[in-house]
């Protein structure tokens, strides 16, 4: 043991540890939110992550069949193959339909907001220890993505970029209590901020907080981003109101929001890399 304390290897390990800590501090201070070590590793391993994500999709789509007795094995096998083929076709069609709808929605958003610049991206990974559904996408700074860029699925806001390497970016979702979005309800024009809690995020829900007790917001109301702050553009849909409740901690009320996007199972997203008002907001920061 004494040899270990005197060894060069311990010194090397201490140097690496210090380098890691400096890297972490650098990541906190840098604009991309990424340590140089993570960045280097990401460049090498992001293609592998993409491959495993594709493999996961592939296995998810394969229908698992039921084996029958020997007497009817052949016949059942043929039928099974047919069923599998049809099931695969159905799955493919469903996926295409969903993709098409997502692209149509984004096209609608693009029509409404001519100033938006989009970058389509695939979800390729997630942090298994994060319960708030943060995910990794296959696009990074080389595609024009920067920290705090809003991320949408169809016409729904799903989160913002938390860190970006050259080839990948990590997205914090609106189900993370760390994410706060300035928002308003379309019918009543009441303003608040959308965020989530540990309890709500488990059910895939968020909340519009900071409402008055006498709020006129009712279920089925649509909540959109207000554009205040410059991180999120105005009029992106965050979700619809499920119910309005009184806050236990103060005299305000809040509305429970249900997102139209299935945030826990996202596969394709769009990153808004540029919109009117974004540059000035970032300059102010």
């Amino acid at each position: 043991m004494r040899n270990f304390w005197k060894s060069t290897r311990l010194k090397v390990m201490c140097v690496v540890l210090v380098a890691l800590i400096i890297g972490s501090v650098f990541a906190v201070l840098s604009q991309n939110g990424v340590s140089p070590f993570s960045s280097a590793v990401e460049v090498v391993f992001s293609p592998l992550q993409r491959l495993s994500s594709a493999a996961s999709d592939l296995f998810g789509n394969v229908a698992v069949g039921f084996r029958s007795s020997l007497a009817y094995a052949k016949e059942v096998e043929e039928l099974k193959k047919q069923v599998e083929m049809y099931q695969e076709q159905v799955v493919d069609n469903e996926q295409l339909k969903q993709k098409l709808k997502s692209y149509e929605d984004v096209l609608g958003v693009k029509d409404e907001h001519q100033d938006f610049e989009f970058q389509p991206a695939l979800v390729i990974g997630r942090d298994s220890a994060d319960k708030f559904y943060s995910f990794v996408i296959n696009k990074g700074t080389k595609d024009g993505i920067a920290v705090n860029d809003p991320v949408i699925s169809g016409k729904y806001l799903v989160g913002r970029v938390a860190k970006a390497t050259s080839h990948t970016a990590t997205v914090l979702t609106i189900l993370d209590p760390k994410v706060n979005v300035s928002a308003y309800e379309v019918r009543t024009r009441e303003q608040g901020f959308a965020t989530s809690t540990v309890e709500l995020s488990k059910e895939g829900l968020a909340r519009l907080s900071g409402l008055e007790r006498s709020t006129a917001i009712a279920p089925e109301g649509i909540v959109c981003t207000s554009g205040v702050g410059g991180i999120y553009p105005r009029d992106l849909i965050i979700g619809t109101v499920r119910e309005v409740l009184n806050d236990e901690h103060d005299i305000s009320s809040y509305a429970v929001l249900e997102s139209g996007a299935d945030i826990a199972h996202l596969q394709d997203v769009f990153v808004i890399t540029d919109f009117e008002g974004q540059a000035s907001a970032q300059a102010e920061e």
Partner: protein
Amino acid sequence: MPKRENRMIYIRWAILAVIIVIVSLFQNTRGLLPEIYGVRAMPLIPLVVCIGMFERDWGSAALGLFAGLLWDGVSAHGQGFRSIYLMIIGCVCGLLLHYFMRRNLVTALLLTSVALVLHNLLYWVFFLLIPGYDGAAKLLLEFYLPSCLYSLIFMPLFFAVMKSLHKRFPNPIVTNG
């Protein structure tokens, strides 16, 4: 050290690095490892502990660092947290096994449990408790502690793999066990 032994070490390290990459992909790709009642597995931790049990301190620290960097790459929280943690865990396991403990399944179970609980507790304290999230305590009971149990399932498999790898490519400077 003879040339042949050196070659053995390089081959073993290369195999271990590949195993780390594969386990990291399984852990951090949605849908590859099933979620049990919303609880997810973190098999990289038992893997690093098992590697630490069959490697010397510096080797396991380096491999732990590699595993941590891969994990940090997909994490939105805590830059470098996993790199530092897994490097230290690898080193400590290597040292404990070399000087104090015997290499068997019970030791592996003990070290893996401690490493898992410590990781999840530290993560919970730094990224949920200190930021002041409501309901953080519930999340600890419903997600982070059960995930320790779920991740522990992988330990015997990794231990067996490391044992066979150690037999096939023996490490001349690992003495205990």
